[in-house]
Every structure is written in C-alpha cells, then in structure tokens.
C-alpha cells in the first residue's frame, strides 16, 4: 500500500495556480524524487503535504488516513516530517538541543530523547558541532542539522526540501551517502531536488513538475530521456537540437 498518496491537489494563491491537480503516490520504503525547474510548484506541494498551507482542492492521504487540512504538528506526529529548503536552525539553541526538539517527538523521556538525538547526530556527522550555537554554522552543516533534526523524530516518511542545493560536490556526495543510510533504517523518502544529477542516482521513481502540473513520472532512466522533461529544463531550442542529433545518429 502507498504510504503517501497525493490526489488531485490544487493550490491557488489568488489567481495564480501554483499546483494544478497533481497526483502521485509514494510506496513504503521507496525513495521518490520530486523535480522540476524553478517555480514548478515543488515547495508549494511540499508545504501542502506537511500542512503548512491549506490545499485549494484535492486530498492527501498518509498511511491510509486523510491528512488534508490537519495542522502541521499533527502530521509530524503521525510520522511525516519535513525539512526546509531555506534552513531554519532554532537560534540560541545548540546543535544538540535542536536535534533534541525533534527527538522528543517519540516521547517525553529525556534519556530516550538524548539517545535518539545522539544517534541522529552521529549518522549526520554533526558530533563535532553538537555544542555549537546553531545560528553560526556554515551552510553545509546547517543543511545537515535540518536533516538530523527531522531524522531524530524517527519519521516513517521523511520529506527533504532541497537538502543538496548550495552544497559543494563533495558535500553532495556525503549527502547522498547519508540518504542511503537513512533508507537502510527503513525510512521512506520524498525528496524535492532542483539538481537532477543529485537525485537520479538514488531515486527509485521520479515525479516531474513544471508550471504546477505533473509533467512526467517514472524511473530515473526513463525520465532522463523524456523529451518533455528535457524541454522543461533546458528550453525548446536545446530540446530540438538534442532531437535532431538523436535522429542524425539514428540515420547514421
């Protein structure tokens, strides 16, 4: 059964339709990528799923229960936890205390929360920063903190919003490794990503959005060769040239 099901979700801001009847599912245990060019409505869709925005129409079902319209803390408590694209460290709190806030979702026990926080900090490679104030960290570390904090809640579905944007290529590799580790812990992942190269190697399935509409859906290998996707990302002209080259090759 699908862990997350997005059914015909539409989100309007006044006249602007940010998401237009988007539907897709995330199977338990999978890594699903949600990609698309800037302004495609990826983050908006994320905000709808996590309860930050109310949807204009449509339904979102998590683990067989409809979560449309629930406040975000209820959705988080059900096990669907997200990170933010623009990092949001809880300022005036140390890295460790940030992660503790997430860890307390499993219960009020301080000792248990501490163990969960330590585990999360270790696998995200934050041990050396644990005592630092979360406000003054380099961006790569802040991104990992976002991840560690969400992970400490022990979610069933972890929704990552561009955790790899703005990272150096080494940092991207570390992040990919981390995502694989997280999956091994039995956590389902829905990953919004702008950089195609980052998501393709790890995703089982990719959903492509463009202009608020679902453009394509399928395994990464198919998506990468999908003409509509190439057009959306690289423009008409480039797509035509690619097409011409392909045809040329076929002829020769």
């Amino acid at each position, binding site marked *: 059964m699908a862990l997350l099901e997005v059914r015909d979700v539409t989100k309007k801001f006044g006249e602007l339709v940010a998401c237009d009847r988007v539907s897709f599912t995330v199977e338990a245990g999978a890594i699903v990528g949600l990609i698309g060019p800037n302004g495609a409505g990826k983050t908006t869709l994320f905000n709808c799923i*996590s309860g*930050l925005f109310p949807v204009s129409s449509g339904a979102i079902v998590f683990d067989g229960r409809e979560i449309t319209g629930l*406040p*975000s*803390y209820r959705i*988080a*408590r059900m096990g669907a*936890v*997200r990170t*933010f694209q623009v990092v*949001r*460290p*809880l*300022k*005036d*709190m140390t890295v460790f*205390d940030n992660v*503790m*806030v*997430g860890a*307390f*979702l499993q219960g*009020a026990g*301080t000792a248990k*929360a501490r163990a969960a926080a330590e585990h999360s900090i270790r696998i995200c490679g934050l041990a050396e920063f644990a005592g630092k104030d979360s406000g003054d960290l380099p961006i790569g570390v802040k991104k990992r903190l976002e991840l560690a*904090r*969400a992970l400490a*809640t022990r979610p069933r579905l972890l929704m990552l919003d561009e955790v790899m944007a703005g990272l150096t290529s080494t940092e991207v590799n570390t992040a990919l490794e981390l995502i694989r580790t997280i999956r091994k812990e039995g956590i389902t992942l829905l990953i919004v990503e702008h950089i195609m190269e980052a998501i393709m190697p790890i995703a089982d399935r990719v959903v492509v959005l463009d202009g608020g509409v679902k453009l394509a859906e399928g395994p990464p290998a198919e998506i990468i060769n999908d003409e509509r996707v190439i057009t959306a990302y690289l423009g008409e002209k480039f797509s035509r040239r690619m097409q011409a080259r392909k045809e040329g090759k076929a002829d020769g």
Partner: protein
Amino acid sequence: MNRTLKRTDLLWLAFTALIALVPLVPAVAMNSFVMHVLILVLLYASMAQAWNIIGGYGGQTSFGHAVFFGIGAYGAGMAVVTYGMTPWPGALVGIVSAAVVAVLISYPCFKLSGHYFAIATFAIVEIFNRMFLVWDWVGGALGLDYMIVEEGLANLMWYDSKTGYFYCALVLFALIFGIVRFLEGHRFGYYLRAVRAGQETAESLGVNSTAVKLAAMALSAALAALCGAFFVQYNLRVDPGMVMSLDTSMKFVLVTILGGAGTLAGPLLGAAVLVPLQEFTRAKWGGLGGGVDLIIFGFLIILIVVKQPAGITGIVRDIARRRGRRGGSGKGGASLGAA
C-alpha cells in the same frame, strides 16, 4: 554534559543555603532596611523568573503580568480583609484565577505576533486597572487595608522582625527557580525555546506551539500570582494602582531583560542590581520628588539594550569567553614549551 549540569545545580543549592544563613548574622537581622532590600531582591527575582517562563524562554513579551500579580495579591488580600480568613485559600484562588485569566486573554493575543502581542497585553493591564477601580466587591479605588491579626506562618504576617518574611521570600524564590530549572531540562523547556526560535519550524517537528505557549502563560501567570500574594502579605495593603499598573508590569520585564532573558540566572542578577539601586536612590533622593529611581532604571536599560542585549548574563559570558581564550592560548604556549 550531565555532570556539569549537576555541578551548577549544586552551586545553586549552596547559594540558596548561604542566603538562608543571612538572618543568623545579628547585624543584618537587626537592620530592617537591609532585610527589606534582601526580601525585595528575592521577591523581584521570583517575579522576574515567573515572567521569564513565557517572556524569556517562550519569547512572548508580555506586559500583562501586573494583572496576574494583582489577582494573586487581591486573592490573598480579600481572604484576610473581606472574609477574615488566613491568606492561604485566597492565594490559591488567586493563583488558579490568574492562570484561567491568562489562558483566556492569551488565546486571542497569541494570534498576534511580536510587537502586536506586547501591545495587546499592554491594553489588558489598563482594562483590569479600571475594572478594579470601580469594583466595590474588591474594595474599589480605596483598596484593601489589613487589620492587625495574630502574627505567624498561619496568617503569613509578622510585625517585629522581618525574618519570617525573609524565609517566605526565600521559599518562594527556591520554588520558582526550582520549577524553571526542572523545565529547562525537560521536553516542555525544549519545546518552549523551539517555539521562541521559530514557530513553524517547531510545528514541523510535532510541537503544538499554541498549546505550549498557553501552558507556559498559565504557569507563568500562576507563579506571578503567588508572588502577588506574598507581596500583599508583606505590604499589608493593596489598591489597583499599586499592583495592576504598567509600572508593575515593567518591573517583571525590565528585571529579566537587565539580567538576561531566557536564562536561569538572569532574573536573580537583574533583581540583585536593580532592587538595591532602586531602594537606595529612593532612600537617598526620595525627597527630590520621587521618580529618581525610575530615571536610573531607564538609563540602565538603555545602556544594556545598546551594549549587550543578552543582559548581565551576556556580559558575564563575554568575560568568561575572553578568559577562556586567554587560558587556551596559555595552554598552547605551555605545550609548545614542552615540545
């Protein structure tokens, strides 16, 4: 990490025990002015710590705490003056009422954020002030004047010596600081600080921020009311202007900010600086027409806000950090020498 926490806790206990010994020094116990200042330091520290829960840790600047303080004071006052009882049941009613009132007025106010929340709480003080001025049941503008009753703990009243009040203030201080220290290390404390740092972020991690803020406000108000009950027993008189005024609200806020909001030690440090200053200037220059203490208050706050917004705890931390750096380089030199 646990061990250092325990060490600071022991330090707090030692400090409280040391304060408890003060009245045993005859020279201090005989000097009622010194005792008065000590009692006020403990009371203001307790008030500030109560405010610190929602204002410091929770980051919701409330200027409405005079209302809760006043409700506590009137609760105890009416039990004694109007109904001829001991102050205890009145204090209890006051504490519960303050918590209920806090939840009722905070719920709509929490829909506002930042400055707008602060402004709304301002208005509430004025509303309660006017209401109590014209409300006959609570004594109206005349307020409540205590009659002479038997002294002792049952009536929470002493005449000859201030030692009884001193120990009551110390218990109040230890209770409120103990509660806040407990919360600091538990889920509620973490959630409260998370809500201060970012409400949306906290909610994304499963924190019901409205519930957390309301609970913090209720607790903060209840403890403020407890302080109010002690105040009226010490002051032996209460009227609306004395407790339900912006002046009183300001004291909650300023003592905490001067000391360092959102820290355990802040309220004590703030009270330890402001109260003696207030009382000595009042004693020395009270004849100048009053308000000199408030002028000095004002200057101090401007100085703190400009120089170190984290308050006295911030200054202490800066000094410690500078020391630490010097100590660190010294160690570096030593190891170089050894090599």
